[in-house]
């Protein structure tokens, strides 16, 4: 049985030979090695604030461009939809409806022209004899 107070307070760990003598040199070499690539990229560090601002502008422009593209697309879609509605109505009118419509239009025109003398002479009801009497 051992008490803590009975055990001599000592450092029982050891280090390899000349460890501490070489340690400082090793650390210095490591610091220099780690500092070298830093030197190569020093211009990057100097440009960092400008690059950040540029990146922000690019981001803002991208957002604006994306929005503009979206808005244009939306407008084209509305125009296309309007055109489509017109097309739809035209498509809905079948051929017979169009004929009916033109016939109706002609009839209306003829009825309206009965009072007109030229129309009267040209009408089928006018006798050829009357044309002769009148000296034609």
């Amino acid at each position: 049985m051992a008490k803590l107070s009975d055990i001599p307070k000592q450092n029982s760990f050891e280090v390899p030979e000349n460890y501490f003598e070489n340690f400082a040199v090793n650390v210095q070499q490591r610091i220099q090695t780690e500092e070298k690539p830093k030197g190569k990229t020093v211009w990057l560090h100097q440009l960092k604030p400008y690059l950040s601002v540029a990146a922000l502008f690019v981001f803002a422009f991208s957002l604006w461009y994306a929005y503009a593209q979206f808005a244009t697309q939306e407008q084209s879609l509305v125009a296309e939809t309007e055109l489509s509605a017109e097309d739809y109505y035209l498509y809905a009118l079948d051929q017979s409806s169009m004929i009916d419509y033109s016939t109706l239009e002609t009839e209306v025109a003829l009825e309206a022209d009965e009072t007109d003398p030229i129309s009267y002479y040209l009408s089928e009801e006018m006798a050829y004899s009357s044309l002769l009497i009148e000296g034609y």
Partner: protein
Amino acid sequence: MQASKNSKKDLDKTIVELYKTDQNKAFGMLMQQYQQSLYWHIRKILISHDDTDDALQNTFVKAWKSLAKFRGDSKLYTWLYRIATNEAITLLNKNKTKITSTIDDNENLLAETLTSDEYFSGDEIQRKLQKAILTLPEKQRIVFNMKYFDEIKYQDMSEILGTSVGALKASYHHAVKKIELILSED
């Protein structure tokens, strides 16, 4: 004792001042002043010499790179110990995840490292003491080593470990009790 404390404080101040004017000299002084004490502090946490070497190098590289930003709010001594402790714990956790999955396994791993360590010259009772220390929870183990072997003041330990003095005293007390219990078992 007071003179030594003052000279240590002055030396720290000189290192920080020299860093701005003569970096080679500052580096030499920093190494001379701290490489051994920090080595032994880390070694007691990691046990293995190779791991200690890695953690100590990381400590000095980080400290050197950050020395320009060191404002002197804390002592250079406690600041360096804090970096060293963090580096040691980081490496310890890395080893834990690499090799083992439980705390018990990690304890065994450190005990095995101690058994096979060619750089351990202690006799049987010293080995037994070290094995008893390894049974302590990680933070309690660090507190015990810092107080028992390095005789660091609680106030400084508080700055290094970011724990209150009261909690550190309680932690040390529990650690001593546990170690004595283990030692008395055989």
